[in-house]
């Protein structure tokens, strides 16, 4: 049994069969072929060997012409290795006698040779690379047109990979992918956000571990604790089975909350809205009884396509969301990406600190044509439903005014062309920089609502990059400095009579619900999966109690103390609700 600790990015516990993707994304499961299919599979193997052989010959000839025989001899050696009688006999026997799938036979046999070479302590160890080369080429030819994409998985699996891109993650088939674990990645990455959106349990940042798995074996993935267990023993499997079962029971119980409002015991109605990334997630929010979409992130339009999205791309996505949510509100946030993440964007200069660099609204205001395209689509969507617009990372009043001016300009344009939109579309800003909190009394006069983004606000308040392992422990929502930022923001908004919402991980965790209600929050936007739990907490507490909890937490001066206190409060609440 091997227990690996990574970073938990999407909750849930699952037990399943491992499917390993190597760095090129090939699936190499330990699969078997039916006895009756052995001859066909052997033919397929022979074809792949022949094609690989031709590829190597082509390389040899090209190199021969370019660099001469000395270099071409390397490819001649590759050919000899590929056609090595011993190797061919082993491959054939793996398929004929052990009934291995040819892909698996190739991977297993060649990797064994590579290992032998790697263990030699002289220059022949380099030959391991040649073997890997041959393996890659054979696999490419074997899988060929049938190269199975992640989307084509047809049986339940847990994906283990070096890395998954956001678009690969977005294309995962939820019916079969029980969870995934990657060697790379950090919290707050887009892959992590997508995993949460798709409600696929995920652990990232595990470090190198793929060498220890070949696929097909049982794996436990604990997306709550960030743990992956390879080759689990019976006892561990039994323990986790119980956990999976319990979670299922709890989920079934929470399901009953769907049509009940998030109303406290003293009659205060809390708006619980969903955070989404893709139009398809609206359904997940609705099925849990959300009050609307409090945060529609639009970055994916920019990340999943190789070109810049057109107005129609934007509009297609926005109108789908608006139509599926019926008459409930949808808050669309404009592009919240760094220039470093934009494929279509040339990074002006190497940014030494992208977090503090050209991103979000700053980038939009620099790239006006791109910004206007998005605004036009949002405005057009405002004609068909309750659409509101949200500007991210506003740090000065000038930025807010500029953004509003561009919006007004686009409105004029649309009006001139007789295109319908809502001229009174509410405009809001994210409060996620200390500057925005400090100056909120000025900002608040110029917006219709605010949304507090706790992830960035914590990062900027505490000056901590949570992707940096060395300091990640300083990133703490319980820090008294963060609590005071929240208190001030909610106080200023309340006094001005401007609605305030909290999005970000803090609002999605039941540990903070009582604190936030006590601080005066009446709207929260959370991932779909968190809606039932948050509702349940709202329905089991009174605002009066919550105020007491918030006051006590605010009187504390260390994050540790606050955390212990909040955890305690949550436990008390949970034990009451179970009883």
């Amino acid at each position, binding site marked *: 049994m091997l227990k690996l600790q990574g970073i938990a990015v999407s909750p849930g516990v699952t037990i399943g069969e491992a499917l390993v993707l190597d760095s090129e994304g090939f699936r190499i499961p330990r699969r078997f072929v039916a006895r009756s299919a052995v001859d066909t599979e052997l033919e397929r193997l022979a074809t792949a060997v022949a094609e690989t052989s031709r590829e190597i010959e082509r390389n040899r000839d090209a190199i021969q012409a370019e660099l001469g025989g*000395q270099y071409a*001899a*390397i490819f*001649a*050696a590759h050919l*000899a*290795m590929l056609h*090595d*009688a*011993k*190797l061919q006999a082993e491959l054939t026997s793996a398929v004929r006698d052990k009934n291995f799938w040819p892909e698996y036979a190739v991977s297993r046999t060649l990797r064994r*040779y590579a290992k*032998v*070479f790697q263990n*030699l302590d*002289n*220059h*022949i160890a380099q*030959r391991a690379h*040649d073997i890997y080369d041959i393996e890659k080429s054979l696999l490419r030819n074997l899988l060929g047109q049938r190269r199975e994409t992640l989307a084509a998985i047809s049986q339940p699996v847990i994906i283990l990979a070096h890395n998954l891109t956001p678009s690969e993650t977005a294309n995962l088939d939820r019916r079969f992918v029980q969870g995934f674990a990657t060697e790379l990645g950090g919290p707050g990455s887009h892959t992590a956000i997508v995993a949460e959106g798709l409600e696929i349990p995920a652990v990232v940042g595990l470090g190198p571990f793929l060498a220890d798995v070949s696929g097909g074996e049982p794996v436990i993935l604990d997306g709550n604790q960030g743990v992956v267990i390879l080759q689990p023993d019976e006892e561990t499997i039994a323990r986790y089975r119980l956990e999976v079962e319990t979670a299922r029971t709890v989920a079934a119980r929470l399901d009953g909350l769907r049509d009940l409002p998030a109303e406290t015991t003293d009659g205060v109605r809390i708006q619980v809205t969903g955070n989404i990334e893709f139009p398809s997630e609206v359904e997940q929010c609705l099925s849990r009884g959300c009050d609307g979409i409090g945060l529609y992130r639009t970055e994916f339009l920019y990340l999943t396509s190789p070109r810049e999205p057109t107005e129609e791309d934007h509009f297609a996505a926005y109108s789908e969301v608006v139509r599926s949510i019926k008459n409930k509100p949808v808050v669309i946030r404009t592009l919240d990406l760094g220039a470093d993440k934009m494929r279509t964007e040339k990074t002006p200069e190497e940014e030494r600190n992208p977090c503090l660099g050209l991103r979000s609204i700053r980038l939009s205001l620099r790239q006006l044509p791109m910004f206007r395209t998005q605004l036009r689509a949002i405005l057009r969507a405002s004609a068909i439903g309750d659409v509101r617009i949200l500007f991210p990372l506003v740090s000065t009043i000038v930025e807010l005014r500029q953004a509003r001016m561009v919006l007004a300009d686009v409105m004029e344009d649309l009006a001139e062309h007789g295109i319908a939109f809502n001229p009174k579309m509410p405009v809001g800003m994210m409060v996620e920089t200390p500057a925005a909190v400090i100056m909120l009394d000025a900002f608040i006069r110029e917006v219709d609502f605010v949304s507090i983004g706790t992830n960035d606000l914590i990062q900027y308040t505490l000056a901590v990059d949570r992707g940096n392992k060395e300091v990640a422990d300083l990133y703490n929502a319980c820090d008294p400095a963060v609590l005071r930022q929240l208190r001030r923001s909610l106080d200023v908004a309340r006094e001005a009579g401007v609605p305030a919402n909290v999005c970000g991980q803090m609002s999605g965790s039941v540990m903070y619900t009582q604190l936030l209600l006590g601080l005066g929050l009446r709207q929260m936007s959370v991932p779909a999966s968190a809606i039932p739990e948050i509702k349940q907490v709202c329905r089991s507490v009174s605002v009066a109690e919550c105020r007491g909890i918030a006051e006590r937490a605010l009187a504390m001066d260390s994050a540790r103390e606050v955390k212990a206190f909040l955890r305690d409060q949550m436990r008390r609440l949970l034990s009451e609700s179970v009883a």
Partner: protein
Amino acid sequence: MQQVVSRDVVVGLKQGLHARPADMLAREARKWQSRIELVSMSQRVDGKSILEVLTLAAEEGTRLVVEVTGPDATEALAAIVRLFDGNFHENDETAVNTAGRTTTP
């Protein structure tokens, strides 16, 4: 007619018995009907398999026994030993390279 013959050889290659000479060796070995094996201190490998020959990881100065069993054993052994004695033509190419270098300013 089964006959077994063997000879000691020493690897004279600067880079040891690497991919190219291993390829030449296996290629030559496959021309013969006899079983051709290379024996080192720790293992015995099939001389017709480049992969196996490589796993010998025989460096310069390594002493090996070439053992040949079969109808054409004597001729096969002579051919293999000739490769070792001629240093797998490695020196010829070095000579070519050196010659090339002198003509280049």
